[in-house]
C-alpha cells in the first residue's frame, strides 16, 4: 500500500545551525501532512501541519515545505537547540478521516 518514507534515518546538527529533515511520500492523492516530534520516553508531539493547497507554512522556528511535483515534504528548524534533539516523523492522509500513515522517523541529534 501507499506509505510515507524518509530520506535520512539520522541527522547530526551543530547547535545554532538550521536543520532540514526530509520526507518522501508515494501517494499523489495525499492532501494533508503533519510533522511530529517524539522525545525519549514521550509520545509524538504535534509540531506543524500543511494542506496540499499550500507549499509553505511557518510556525515558531519551524517551516514546512511541500513540493507536490516530486512528492516531497521537509521540516526546517531554525537555530537548532539541544531541546530539539528527538525523533521526527512525517505523516500523511488523503481522504476525510482516513487514518494517518506515518514514516519510520528521523533522529535529530544536536551537538552542543
Amino acid at each position, binding site marked *: 500500500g501507499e506509505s510515507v518514507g524518509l530520506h535520512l534515518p539520522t541527522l547530526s546538527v551543530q547547535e545554532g545551525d538550521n536543520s532540514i529533515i526530509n520526507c518522501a511520500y508515494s501517494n499523489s492523492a495525499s*492532501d*494533508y501532512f*503533519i510533522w*511530529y516530534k517524539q522525545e525519549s*520516553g*514521550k*509520545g*509524538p*508531539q*504535534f509540531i506543524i*501541519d500543511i*494542506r496540499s493547497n499550500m507549499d509553505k507554512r511557518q510556525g515558531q522556528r519551524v517551516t514546512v515545505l511541500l513540493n507536490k511535483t516530486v512528492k516531497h515534504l521537509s521540516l526546517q528548524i531554525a537555530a537548532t537547540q539541544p531541546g530539539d534533539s528527538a525523533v521526527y*516523523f512525517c505523516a500523511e*492522509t488523503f481522504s*476525510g*478521516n482516513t*487514518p*494517518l500513515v*506515518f*514514516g*519510520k*522517523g528521523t533522529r535529530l541529534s544536536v551537538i552542543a
Partner: protein
Amino acid sequence: DVKVTQSSRYLVKRTGEKVFLECVQDMDHENMFWYRQDPGLGLRLIYFSYDVKMKEKGDIPEGYSVSREKKERFSLILESASTNQTSMYLCASSGTGYRQPQHFGDGTRLSIL
C-alpha cells in the same frame, strides 16, 4: 491544550493474561486510535474509532480488541497476551472533520513475560 492520558506508563504481564490498556482524552474528540511502536517498524495502527461504540480495524488488529463505551475513553484489550505483544502502545485522539491532527498520549510500555 489537548490532553490524552494513558493509565499506565509501564506494565508487566504474563503470557496468557487478559490485559487492558486505558486511554482518556479531555477534548471531546470523536476519533481515537491505538498504535504500537516498535524499533525499526515505526507506528502501526491497531484499531481506531470514529464514534462511541464504533470500531475499525487498523493494520495489525490480530490478537487485540477495543472498547469505546464513552466518547472520552478508548480501551485496548489483549485477549490472551503473548510475548510478541511486548511493545510501546500509544493512544491518540483527533477532532472530527477533515484534516485534523492526532494528539498522542505518552504511551504505555508493556512487557509480556
